[in-house]
């Protein structure tokens, strides 16, 4: 299954913990079908969120997001990437 790295520019941040947990919990449920949300990294300096996905195609990833989520964190880039694990060298 191809992997993708998405970069989101954070346009607006959750001001309430419950909203954050509820929305990310919803995305987690939606991202358990064709597309799987694997991990995220947030960079406070650039206010960007980087997310790793596994999916058959980009469209199945985009289908996981609500319009509100895309307004809050618009996708700046979506790139297919190849996973490499340094532990393979051990």
């Amino acid at each position: 299954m191809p992997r993708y790295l998405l970069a989101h520019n954070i346009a607006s941040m959750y001001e309430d913990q419950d909203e954050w947990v509820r929305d990310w919990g919803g995305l987690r449920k939606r991202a358990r079908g064709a597309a799987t949300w694997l991990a995220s990294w947030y960079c406070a300096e650039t206010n960007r969120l980087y997310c790793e996905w596994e999916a058959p195609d980009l469209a199945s990833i985009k289908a996981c997001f609500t319009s509100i989520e895309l307004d809050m964190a618009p996708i700046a880039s979506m790139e297919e990437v190849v996973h490499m694990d340094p532990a393979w060298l051990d």
Partner: protein
Amino acid sequence: MPHSFPSTGWVESLVAILNEDERYAHVARGWEGDLLFEIHPDGDGPGVGQGVQRVYLDLWHGRCRSGSFHEVGSLNVPKAAFSMLATKAQFLRILSGELDPMQAMLTRKLQVVGSMGYILRNVPVVLDFVRCCRRVELPGQPTG
């Protein structure tokens, strides 16, 4: 010297660490906001309000201007910009490094009252603050 959590000794040790830690001073140089830990008894979920111990820390631009421990029923607890609520067991899991603070917030094991946006925008400050908290030696748990 080990200090149990929460206690006056633990708070005094943390205040000293925060004020001598150069990395914290740098990372938190822009931070403005005092913090209140609300420590609930184990088995007593946050929000119940009984038997709650509190730790107040006045964090300002990479320094801790003051800190205080407030036993159950204390009346003179300062208001803070941010409150973090959890059971004592969950606080200890965070302090021991067993529970990641981001995971604790995202799973509500650590409840945040105050601007979540400010907390998220300042995640490096929060994580470095937790690193300093972990430097306070707990009984039976030497810190590195």
